[in-house]
């Protein structure tokens, strides 16, 4: 049984003009200890996916259908108590800005002990000892002193290390990391990503890494899911997504990176911008920016089809795949 199984998950946002779909029936699975990257631009639905998994959606957002099976239990049907029990305990989340995650008026130690004692029947001393061990695991220098410090006394990189330690406190099965290094500098980012990878590997923790940075995904994850306008448009092994992308959007995203073009020449840009929720085009959401657009693309949204180890939602790719055997035969 997979650790996480999402089926036809639809998330909508209520507005004056009626409910608008931020996620359009997405489905994916995550095996135990697997590391999955979710890539896409702002507004693609990456973060909403993470929030929905943790049952953290707040009004006006709501889950409008589908199921999220985590270790066989449907997160969408859980009572508030069950959700509290799951969050931080079996499933933990790491956010972009560590200063927002940490409580500024509590010491690091108080926050870690509080988390532990909320979920486990531990004495204060026992909890503090566990916190100390976890801080050592994430290579925090002089962890004893850190426990009595406040978040503002620490640097950004150190704070994000502490967040990782806190996420691992209760030995969760799954960590959802939403842009965990976007607020950090490159040299610190490389450090934190390596730590996250090491922690997930050594503790057999599943990881969902939400990011816009394909380079980060390529370093940390085994499988990658590309999202566009609330849909999954391509999923597959990270290596094949990066080396041999199928969907025109994924191709465009990779080709748009400066390192794909010789210095000084024009970058290969994707024209236009992602449609907004209120002005979603009919058919394939990418057809307004796609070079291979046909009438079919404008009419119907493409289904996700499996080709080898990648799954793609694109009429053009489907056509090519259908025609390929014929061409080979000729």
């Amino acid at each position, binding site marked *: 049984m997979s650790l996480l199984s999402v089926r036809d998950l639809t998330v909508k946002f209520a507005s004056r003009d009626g409910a608008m779909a931020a996620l359009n029936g997405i489905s994916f699975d995550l095996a135990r200890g697997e590391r999955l990257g979710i890539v896409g631009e702002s507004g693609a639905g990456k973060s909403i996916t993470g929030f929905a998994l943790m049952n953290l959606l707040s009004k006006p957002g709501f889950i409008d259908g589908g199921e999220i099976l985590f270790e066989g239990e449907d997160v969408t049907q859980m009572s508030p108590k069950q959700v509290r029990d799951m969050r931080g305990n079996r499933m933990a989340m790491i956010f972009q800005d560590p200063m927002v995650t940490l409580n500024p008026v509590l010491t690091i130690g108080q926050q870690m002990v509080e988390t532990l004692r909320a979920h486990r029947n531990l004495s204060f001393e026992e909890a503090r000892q566990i916190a100390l061990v976890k801080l050592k695991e994430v290579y925090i220098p002089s962890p004893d002193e850190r426990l009595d410090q406040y978040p503002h006394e620490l640097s950004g990189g150190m704070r994000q290390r502490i967040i990782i330690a806190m996420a691992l406190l209760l030995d969760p099965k799954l960590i959802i990391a939403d842009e965990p290094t976007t607020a950090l500098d490159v040299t610190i980012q490389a450090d934190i990503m390596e730590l996250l990878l090491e922690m997930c590997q050594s503790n057999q923790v599943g990881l969902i890494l939400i990011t816009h940075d394909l*380079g980060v995904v390529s370093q940390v994850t085994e499988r990658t899911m590309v999202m566009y306008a609330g849909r999954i448009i391509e999923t597959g092994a990270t290596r094949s997504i990066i080396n041999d992308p199928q969907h025109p959007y994924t191709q465009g995203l990779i080709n748009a990176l400066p390192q794909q073009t010789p210095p000084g020449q024009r970058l290969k840009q994707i*024209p236009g*911008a992602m449609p907004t929720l209120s002005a979603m085009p009919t058919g394939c959401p990418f057809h307004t920016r796609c070079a291979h657009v046909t009438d079919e693309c404008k009419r119907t949204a493409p289904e996700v089809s499996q080709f080898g180890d990648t799954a793609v939602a694109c009429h053009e790719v489907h056509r090519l795949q259908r025609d390929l055997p014929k061409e080979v035969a000729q």
Partner: protein
Amino acid sequence: MSWDLETGPLLRVRGLEKRFDLDEGLLESLKFSGGKITRQTRAVHAVNNITFDVNKGDAVCVVGESGCGKSTVARMVAGLISPSNGEIHYGGARIDGLRGKDLLPLRKKIQMIFQNPYASLNPRMTIGQTLAEPLRYHNPGKSKGELQDKAIAVMKSVGIDPAWSARYAHELSGGQRQRIAIARALTVDPEFIVADEPISALDVSIQAQVLNLMLEMQEAHGLTYLFITHDLSVVEHFGTKVIVLYLGSICEVADTRTLFSNPKHPYTKALLSAVPQLKDDRPNHIRLKGEIPTPINLPAGCPFASRCPLADNRCAAEKPMPLQKDDGSIVACHAVEEKRIDALDWV
């Protein structure tokens, strides 16, 4: 000081320094220690003794991590804040310390593009008003019709439909807003653009659009750029020359190609290796220990010494001076000077 304008650099920065005082008032500066009241003023040393040139037509990139003084340099060059020390010369004339009306001709020549197009456009102005305002301000003699024609011409040149002039900034996406910000900078036909992280707030596919626009505008108007960024892949693509800053000091200045093929300063090497690559097959990642020291209490020696694997007693005591190398690059590092750098088996 004078030099040949035809061959000399367009922008010349000498010994630039900027301190921001933390304890402004008298009471704030009083400290009680050891039974005595003493006066102490602390300051953030944002930029320390920076010297560089920008030639006409160059795209000079300033890179470094947050807090290294990149944006402060940009703001001083654009004349938004004045330096604590040092000189800035533009086109042969000294421009630091100019005030009020004296700044006006300079503002026409040097324009700035900011990082966040959500904050840099006035939400109460339409796009048309946003573009017309600098035009009207700098060309008081021109008629309304002339100004409008110019605004429309600029809009067309950056790929904005002139029909948008009646819209407000909130009706546009981030990429479109940044186009407007670029268009606004171009309305007064500047020679020099200071761009402070102009694409960092944008999505990947939009970043490419804006970067392409900046390259096109450079060709069309013969612009010179001072480009502030932390994204090294953008630097490699866009820049002709790179200045690497660390804690307000210059580590290395070199041609883009030289810097990327043969980085010399240990920090530059670490920075280059830390960039996540798509094809993840590089053998050595460089691990830098520790964090950037605070710019309030600057170390006496090399600012990078606390994180450098090659740091020795000299590095801790004496700040390295920027020295020119055979290939034209300028490096401030004792280890490079003493040829100890080869001991580093990085990159």
